[in-house]
Each structure stands twice: as C-alpha cells, then as structure tokens.
C-alpha cells in the first residue's frame, strides 16, 4: 500500500485491507471471530501475542493461516525441554568454501522470520525461553558477539497449554510482560464444530490466499501509530495501569487483597498501541477510551501477579481486571 497524501483516505484503505485479511483468515479458520479480531489488533499494533488454549483448538492453524494471508516468512518452533537457544537463534556452522576449504558461516535460526510460532512455549526451559527475550524486545539477535537485526515486521505468536502442567516451565514474569496480549482460545460452539466437521474432512480443503503483502502491513502499522490520541485517553490508560497496583487507591478493594504486583509501564504502552490499532480497524482517525477499555483485559490480565489469598479465594486475574474496569471511569 503506497503512502497516501490524505491520511483519512489511507485510514479507509487500511480498514479495507484489514477486512480483506480477516476474511481471508476466515476461509480457512472456522469460528473464533473474536479471537481473529484480537489477533489482527495485536498484529497492527506490532505486539507479540500469547495464545493459551487446550490442544486441538487450532492455534497453530490460525497462526499459519495468518502468515499465508500476509505472504510473510513463517517459522515454527516446537518447544521441548531439550530445545537449546541456538536452535532458535541459529549459530555458526561449518560450510565448504568454493576453493574446497571450510569456513564458519552464520546459519540463521527460525527466529529470522516475519511470523514466528513458538508452539507450546512453556515446554521449553527458561534458558531457551530467554533466547526469545532479546528478539521480542529489541527485534534483534546477538550471536557470537554479533548483533543481527530482524527484518520487520517481526511477530511472535506463542502458544501454551494450560492443562498439562507436568514437564512445563511457566513463563517468567519478564517474558510474559513482553507479550502485548494473552489471548484465550475458547472452545468452539456446536455450530462451529459442525462446520469444522463438514469443511475440514474432505479431500479438498480450503487454502489461504495472499491478500496483503509485507509493505502494506508495515504501512498499516505506521498509520496506526499516527492516529490521534487525546490527553484524556492517556489519562484513562494511565489510571487503569495504576489501579492494578495494590498500593494505589484508584483500584477496587480486590486489587489490594488479591494482587501482589500490578501492571508495568510497558502495559501503558501496550494499552495505547492496542487502542490505536483497534481504532484503525474501526476506521477511526482517533482513539477513544472505549478502544482502551476494550483491549484492557487482553493487555492487563497476564501482567498482574496474584497473591496467595487470591488463589484461596479463587480470584483470577480477569476478575481483578474486571474490577479495575468497573472502578476506573473515563
């Protein structure tokens, strides 16, 4: 998508492009409309996403379909306990030179892609998980003392299975904070299950078509960052973040009793960026508090560390976020 001199027209074009992308994903991925929208919101915002759901819900299919529709370079890493950091970042390998000799040459790992699927990331050891930290935060990889930049866009979608806890390594808080959204993949409804059964069991299965290219996606991301965000939206997002802290008096009582640590300033960035993306997908040229409110559960839930009392009282992070959203008004 070439840059338009009229931002308003560019917004309309971006919205149409994103609508085409969404439609393209739906041709392959059945159901989960809300999940697809959240996925695209994170994509436009330039954030990394963590998908959590039971096995067989189509998490991997969703990510692969997205990469196919965008025509982006796609990599998949299946995390296992014996996975090593070099298996992610790549490293030097011995190659044969044209003169018949040998030399060390850097061999890029799967992280050098546009869309990286870190499947069952909680099965990898913390050391291996940490290998993704630099790539996710700085969009660069340092191997053997040499720093290599990743080509934009770089989009990490990690999945984890919440029901198999044995042999898993829960993601450290620092790494959780680097995921813009944590999306729950719900179980499909009966209608969706019927469509899955009818459309995916034939010989000829639908395939994803490329509806958007890399440059077009970058232009959409740039446009989202240019949307107007008024002061009261910043104020609202900031109060939301502060309200998740137990020492703040902005939040409800449940925060003071159940939360050990609140959301970080990175959550503030994520709220605004995701709000911009959501506004752009709606064709708006400005961000409203409603945009921030809509993305707040996705942004804040995995950034809140609950205390022991919360477990005793069966209070979840989503309950805390709902309480915060009920307390903080625009």
């Amino acid at each position: 998508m070439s840059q338009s001199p009229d931002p308003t027209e560019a917004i309309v074009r971006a919205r149409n492009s994103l609508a085409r992308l969404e439609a393209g994903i739906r041709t392959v991925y059945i159901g989960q409309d809300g999940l697809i929208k959240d996925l695209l919101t994170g994509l436009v915002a330039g954030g990394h996403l963590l998908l959590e759901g039971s096995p067989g819900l189509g998490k991997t299919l969703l990510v692969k379909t997205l990469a196919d529709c965008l025509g982006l370079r796609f990599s998949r890493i299946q995390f296992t306990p014996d996975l090593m950091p070099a298996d992610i970042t790549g490293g030097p390998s011995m190659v044969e030179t044209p003169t018949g000799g040998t030399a060390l040459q850097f061999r890029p790992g799967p992280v050098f892609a546009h869309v990286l699927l870190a499947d069952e990331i909680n099965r990898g050891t913390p050391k291996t998980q940490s290998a993704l930290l630099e790539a996710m935060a700085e969009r660069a990889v340092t191997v053997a003392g040499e720093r290599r930049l990743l080509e934009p866009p770089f989009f990490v979608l990690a999945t984890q299975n919440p029901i198999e806890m044995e042999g898993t390594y829960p993601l450290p808080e620092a790494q959780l904070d680097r995921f813009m959204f944590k999306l729950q993949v719900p179980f499909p409804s009966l209608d969706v299950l019927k469509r899955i059964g009818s459309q995916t069991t034939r010989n000829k299965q639908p395939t994803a078509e490329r509806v958007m290219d890399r440059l077009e996606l970058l232009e959409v991301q740039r446009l989202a960052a240019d949307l107007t965000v008024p002061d009261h939206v910043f104020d609202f997002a900031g109060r939301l973040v502060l309200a998740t802290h137990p020492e703040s008096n902005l939040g409800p009582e449940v925060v003071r009793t159940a939360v050990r640590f609140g959301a970080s300033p990175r959550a503030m960035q994520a709220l605004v960026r995701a709000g911009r993306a959501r506004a752009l997908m709606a064709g708006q040229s400005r961000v409203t508090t409603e945009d921030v409110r809509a993305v707040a559960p996705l942004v804040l839930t995995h950034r809140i560390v609950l205390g022991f009392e919360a477990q005793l009282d069966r209070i979840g992070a989503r309950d805390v976020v709902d309480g915060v959203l009920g307390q903080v008004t625009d």
Partner: protein
Amino acid sequence: MIGTVALMGAVSRLLLAVAPIWTLGLTIFAVGAWAWKVRRDVMASCRTPGDTARAVDRAGNTQELLRTALSVEAGTASGDPVLAAQVLRDARARLAELAPLADRPFRVPREGVGALMMGIALCFVPLPTAAEAPIARGGGLGPQADTPAAARTTPRPLRVAFTDTPTAGEATDAASSSGSGDRASQGGAATGLSAGTAGSQGQTAASGDAASAQAEGGATPLTGSTGGRAREAGTAGTDELAQNSDGGSRGPTGEGDDAPEQSDTPVADQDGRTMQSPVEQTAAETDAVRSDAETMGLASETPDDGDAKTRDVAGTLDVRTDGPQFFDAEEKADDEQDGKGGAGGWTVGLSQPGRGGVNDASGSTWRTEAGLDNPPDWTDAPSEWVDAAWQDSPAGVIRRVRGGEAGGRGTAEYQAAWHRYAAIAESDAAFDEVPAGRRDLARAYFLAIAPSETP
C-alpha cells in the same frame, strides 16, 4: 432580591410574634443549612470545559469527539497533525448540532417557592471580592486593553508631600497643573486635601467634574466656597472621600486669602503621571491630615516622623479606589511579610523618593532609581522601535510601538500595547516561580512606562 429579603424580615417578625426566639433561631439555622447545601451543590456542579465536552459527547454519542478536539486544541493530543486537524474540522462541523446539548449544570429557579429559597440561598453565596478579581475590575489592566483609550484608567503612582507651610494656591495649582480630571481626582482622593476629589471612580463624570472644579479653583486660592463647589461636583464619590475633600478645604486652604505663603511649588512630573500636592501645614494640621489618612486606611503607612520637614506618604497610599489593581489580598499579605509595602497597600516604586527610604515592615532600606528628585524625562526620551510578538497572533505578527516622535506614550497604540503587556506581566507574576518579593519589580516597571493621558 430585595423583595425576598423583605419577605424574610416579615416572616421573622411574624415568627417572633407568635413563637419563642428559639423557633426563629432554629428556622434561621435550617435555612442556613439548606443554603449551604445549595451552595455546595452549585459549586460541585460547576463544569470545566472538559466536563462539558464529556457531557456533550455522551449526550450526543459523538465518541468523545469534543473531548478529543479540546485536547488537540490544547496541544496535549498525540498523533499525526493532519489527522488532528481533521478531528478539529469534524468537531466544528458538529458544533452547532451539539451546542443545545450543553445544558447548564444548574438552573436557578425563577418562580414560586424555589425562587424564594434560591434568593435566600444567594444571600449566603459570597460574591467575588475586588481582591479576588483584580483584573476584571474597572481599574484592572486586562479588560482595559479592549476598551477605548479614553475610557481607560491609567494607573499611576501617587505621591503627596506635606510641608510645614502649605498654601491653597499650591494645592490648586497642583490640581490644575495635572491637566486631567482623572489625575486630579486621584491626587485629591489620595491626600484628602484637594477639594472635590471624591472620585472613587477615576474616569467617572463625577471625578471629571471634580477636576473641573479643581481647575476652576486653581485660578484663585482655594476658598471654602471653591471647596464647596468641588464637593458638589464630586458628589458621586463616596461619603468618606467627600469628608476627606471637606477636610481638605477645611485645612490650610480653607481660608483662601489667609493662607500662608507657599514655600514649595506643587510638582507633577513631566508626563503628568505622578502628582505631588505639597501643602505646608502646621503640626496640628498635619495631624488633621493624618486623621484623613486614617480615614482612608492609610494611617499605618504614614511615616510618623513629625520632625521631618517633608513628609512623604507616597507609595503608601492604597490606590484601590481608582488605580490599577495589581494585587490581591493574599499577595498583599505576602508583600507585608516580605517587607514590601504594608497594610495600606502596595508601594509603588516610581512614587517613592529617588533616594529610597525605610520599609516600615522590615526596617530594611530600599531605593528606586526613578524618584521625583530625579524625574525621568519621558517625553524627550529617545525613541526606539520595540518589536514584540503578541500572543493572540499565532502567525507571529510583530507589533511595533513607536516612541517619542510618534506621540510618545500618549498614543492609542502605545496605550493598547502597554495594557496588554502589563496584563501579561501581571498574570505571569502570579506564578510560583516568581518570588513574591520580586513581583513588584515588574509592576513598578510597567508603572514607570505607563502611558500618559495626552500624546
């Protein structure tokens, strides 16, 4: 309102007649409590522009269009300027449609019992005092920038020197030499000696008439009859000041021909902004003058140096009656605490004697460069171009204020520029970053370059 109060009085008398006193007290307490609640609700319902925009956005389902536009206008929004401009255009396009939604947060009942109770409630709502709204008053600076030049009150320092042998001629000459009814009224009002200087409103017709009367009296020694005419002309002034003017004519000038020889001539500086009314007085008459000053609330500022040949109460005069209102009560308290000025008001630098003096509050000495002993030559001062960008001109229009050869400080352009910049300086001086003890410097400076009455 008057009817309401009268009705309250009648009800009170009726209650007193039929009920014991505690019933009336209870009623008054109940009404007061209700009034307090109304006042609290009114205050709580006051809306900021942001609140109003939020209410309109909600009522009009605009998805925060007005609030966003407000933020864009305030420069607090983030994003592409072109998109921000689009937000402003959208907001302006819908403004006419949304305006009716900006209903008042509180409507004053105008009929029935509600109106009666509201009238009672308003009795308890304190009105903004003069000290709380210095700029908004007639003598302030801000609004005057938009008023015709002839209607402006030119702030000027006051200086009155009392000598041992005042004469009527001096007083009247001083009045007549001032060349302005407004100026004459100020001088008279400050001293309480000049006849007919009752003009609490310096630019009112009353004070103008008073000035005429003074000018008339200036041709002859100020006799009692002259003072009487002056009082007639200045009847629009306050009774207190009328007494002062009466006192003035009752003083050494009252007898006209019997007045002693003048030992000093009245001096007004060359642009006529400041005026001194030197009047020779005996010690007893000085006490009378001091009494007048006390009447004007200046007693605490009057130096109590009876042996001094010349007594200068300049800068100690409270110019709240007709001068520029630069200070409010809080600021005045700060000044008092800092030793700048005193209870009588703010001391004007230019009006101080050039050799300085002793501060009454702190005992410290001060000194000003522009004193009457060395009056600056305003009219013949070398002219220069002053380039200054005015804030209401975002495009950066440069206004040039021409100096002496273009008419000096009497031109309308100079006056307009002076009022504007003085208002800016005054508002900026209220910032906490400006030490309270230093704020007078900017004020004294603007008084020093105050426009003259005539080109």
